[in-house]
């Protein structure tokens, strides 16, 4: 992700540079490589070599131009193009008699560096610098080899002028890359900080919301416990505490990543009753669509309430069908909390709760039908 960002910034900064280099190399192509060799009469084979060199440079220029104008990289072809530039340089200078080298062929010394820049600048400033250096070194070697050592000073002047401009362009390209990296790193850090802020804010809001829910139910119970007004001998009071504790456990379970959240949260609701010594059977029958969190709470809530009064055993089942799910609990309740048969009620999330009392046995079912 960060690499993509950096490439984008580099692209924005380096593109104008590529356009400038393209303009320069195109002018040089026409001005020097095409017109200069034609300015005076010359042997035919020399003209032929100049024509081939021109053609090679023209190909380099066109391929690079297509890439620059379409804002693409040149790709691996760049190395072939760089080799073509060297070949063109060799062609223009080959066969030129030593004494005429500095007069008739020196144009290639000044101009061809720009073609190297053109194909390499978007890839690597280091590669461009190395090839420019190699090119310049080769021109000096050639001059000395043909016995024109005396004219090295002239070449120094010519090369300095050419490299002066070329290196400036390279320096700008290097600086752009560095700026891009710094800018992208800074942006990434800022993005991270923003994300962390957003998460913290979300968590905080979440905690406040949960606290608000608990403030109504759990906090008064805890207060009664601390100031001694809670009468724990009363089975109803104990049941109230059991309900609050089971709700808390369910709340914790709601944040777990599990395959079947309903069964998982149900298990959390039953945990406390099991610790109390109630023999709990939890079974599932059939598969069912996944109910959303609010529905799952409404489905498990009757279980939480009934289990608070469970005495010895409870049978909790999740009955699935293709269109919905029913959570069923059958248990024997303690005398004090013998559940009043509640009329069938539909909660605001569409869960239908029915109950059936048979002596000490209570059977409560919560059913949800998935919206079709």
């Amino acid at each position: 992700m960060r690499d993509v960002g950096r490439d984008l910034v580099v692209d924005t900064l380096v593109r104008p540079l590529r356009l400038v280099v393209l303009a320069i190399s195109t002018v040089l192509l026409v001005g020097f490589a095409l017109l200069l060799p034609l300015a005076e009469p010359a042997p035919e084979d020399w003209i032929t070599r100049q024509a081939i060199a021109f053609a090679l440079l023209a190909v380099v220029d066109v391929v690079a131009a297509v890439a620059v104008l379409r804002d693409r990289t040149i790709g691996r072809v760049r190395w072939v193009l760089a080799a073509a530039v060297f070949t063109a340089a060799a062609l223009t200078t080959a066969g030129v008699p030593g004494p005429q080298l500095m007069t008739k062929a020196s144009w290639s010394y000044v101009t061809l560096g720009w073609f190297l820049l053109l194909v390499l600048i978007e890839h690597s400033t280091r590669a461009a610098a190395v090839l420019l250096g190699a090119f310049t070194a080769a021109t000096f070697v050639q001059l000395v080899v043909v016995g024109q050592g005396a004219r090295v000073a002239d070449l120094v002047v010519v090369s300095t002028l050419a490299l002066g401009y070329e290196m400036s362009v390279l320096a700008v390209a290097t600086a752009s890359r560095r700026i891009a990296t710094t800018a992208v790193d800074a942006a990434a850090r800022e993005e991270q900080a923003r994300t962390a802020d957003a998460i913290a804010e979300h968590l905080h809001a979440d905690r406040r919301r949960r606290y608000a829910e608990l403030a109504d139910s759990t906090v008064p119970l805890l207060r009664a416990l601390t100031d001694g007004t809670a009468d724990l001998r009363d089975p109803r009071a104990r049941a109230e505490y059991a309900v609050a504790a089971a709700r808390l456990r369910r709340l914790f379970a709601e944040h777990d990543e599990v395959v079947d959240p309903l069964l998982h949260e149900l298990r959390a609701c039953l945990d406390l009753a099991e610790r109390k010594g109630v023999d709990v059977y939890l079974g599932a029958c059939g598969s069912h669509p996944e109910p959303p969190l609010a529905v799952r709470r409404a489905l498990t809530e009757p279980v939480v309430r009934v289990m608070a009064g469970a005495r010895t055993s409870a049978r909790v089942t999740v009955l699935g069908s293709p269109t919905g799910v029913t959570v069923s609990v059958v248990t024997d309740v303690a005398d004090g909390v013998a559940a009043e048969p509640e009329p069938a009620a539909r909660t605001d999330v569409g869960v239908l709760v029915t109950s059936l009392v048979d002596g000490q046995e209570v059977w409560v079912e919560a059913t949800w039908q998935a919206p079709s």
Partner: protein
Amino acid sequence: MASAELTKVVVIDDHPAIVAGIEAWCAAADPPIEVVDSGQTPAGAWTEPGLSADVVVFDLQLTEQVPAYGEVRRLVDSGRQVIVYSMREDRDTILTCLDLGVFAHVAKTEGPRHLVHAIHAASRNLPYTPPTMARAMSTDARRDRPKLTARETDVLVNWFACESKEMVARKLGLSVRTVSSYIDRVRIRYANAGRPASTKAALVARAIQDGLVRLEEL
């Protein structure tokens, strides 16, 4: 066949505590059941006094890791009434046992009530379907399964949910007798399906005699 006679069972289970528990439940049953022998291997059911027992209570998961379906099949093929009493309560295990022709599959989580009921019923060739077996039949998804009506599925699921035919009857507005007959008719259809076995045939024959199902319904 005579219900006045004491029902005799042989218990095949590799855990002595399970055997002791079953013996205690059988002794306390009404009418009492006599555990004539017990063993950790199926050999106990093939030698006297286990050989003449009316019912074999068989643990599917003996010492090996794989369910002992082969042993179950041999017992059923020789005309024994087998009740599989197993830790496993998944649908496929139960349906496989039913296919093999066992009288009933009782899960070890289901406790004494269903096992004792099943033994009594087995000795008289009357169908008995414990809740986990009802669940397996109600969620059967195999292509060649016996087709259940919506009402039958409903009764089976509710029977699994509350284990009390009285409560199912009250909830669905039926009589307890009707609830039982819905469950039993499904059981008979399962007995009539798939691989033939003499015990399955006896169950179906008795159901027809009792008017639970008519021949043309099968």
